[in-house]
């Protein structure tokens, strides 16, 4: 190894990573012309980069990420539900009222009251005809079509851009 190798060897990796200044690049390239050892070292680094990079690139190119986004959405939804439940649990733990053993007769009273309330609600409620699903409808910007299917239990409200109708008129004429 040449004496100048010791000064250039520190720069060799920076040169390989394209992080050198113009002056440093000039120094390294000048040295490389005459030093097979440093050239081998550079080649070795290039080979290592290939070995590390290529399998990862190939794996990424072959990957079609099946259902990954759907799973992410589902996980976010689940976490939102869990955090609501955790807040409630922490509130229950903190609440002094619920720590006391007097909650047993209290729960019994609640159950009875809820049963009574439910009976009252059920008796009061009239049954609605579901013949009419759309109570009212209006739009400032679109024409509207409403389609109701009793059989499919489906109601479709379709909005037409005014310019769509113009295009249809133009194409018909």
């Amino acid at each position, binding site marked *: 190894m040449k004496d100048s190798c010791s000064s250039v060897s520190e720069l060799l990796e920076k040169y390989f990573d394209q992080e050198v200044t113009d002056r440093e690049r000039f120094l390294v390239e000048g040295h490389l012309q005459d030093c097979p050892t440093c050239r081998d070292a550079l080649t070795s680094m290039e080979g290592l980069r290939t070995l590390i990079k290529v399998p990862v690139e190939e794996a990424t190119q072959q990957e079609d990420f099946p259902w990954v986004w*759907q799973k992410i*959405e589902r996980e976010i*939804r689940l976490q939102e539900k869990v955090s609501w439940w955790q807040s409630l649990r922490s509130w229950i733990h903190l609440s002094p*009222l619920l720590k*006391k053993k*007097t*909650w047993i*007769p*209290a729960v019994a*009273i*609640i159950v009875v*009251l*809820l049963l009574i*309330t*439910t009976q009252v*609600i*059920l008796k009061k*409620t*009239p049954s*609605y005809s*579901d013949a*009419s*699903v*759309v*109570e*009212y*409808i*209006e*739009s*400032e*910007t*679109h024409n*509207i079509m409403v*389609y109701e*299917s009793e059989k*499919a*239990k*489906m*109601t*479709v*409200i*379709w*909005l*037409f*851009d005014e310019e769509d109708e113009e295009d249809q008129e133009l194409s018909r004429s």
Partner: protein
Amino acid sequence: MRRIFPILLFILSLSLILASLSYAQVQVRLRVFEASNVGTGIDSSLRDMRDQLKPLVDFSSYRLLKEETPTLYANRPVSFPAHPGRIIELTLIKQDKNVADVRVRIKREQMDILNTQVRLSPGRTVSIGGPKHGEGVIIITLSGQF
């Protein structure tokens, strides 16, 4: 007994409040998806919607953009961005047993693209479609979870 009484009174009040609140709330399922004739992919969760809409509209591709399941309380609007520049606002107007009247407003900037009130009941879906989105259209479906 003196110690228990305030606790029981609190629980009694709470149960009455809960009973009255449960009288006027409904959980809805809101889905926003893009339907187009570009491509042939369909999100598996949308197959039921595609089959229902087929008599009216039949696109080759359905892609789910957003799904929310908010709980609506009487006269408390809940808003969501529906797609860039638009907001969908849901308000529970009234609710009786398994029927809920919900006002649906879709707004862009300050304009009402749609202002409607629909009645949701078990098994019924309301679909609102038509606004352009990219190469296709936006379809919004709303159903009650009773």
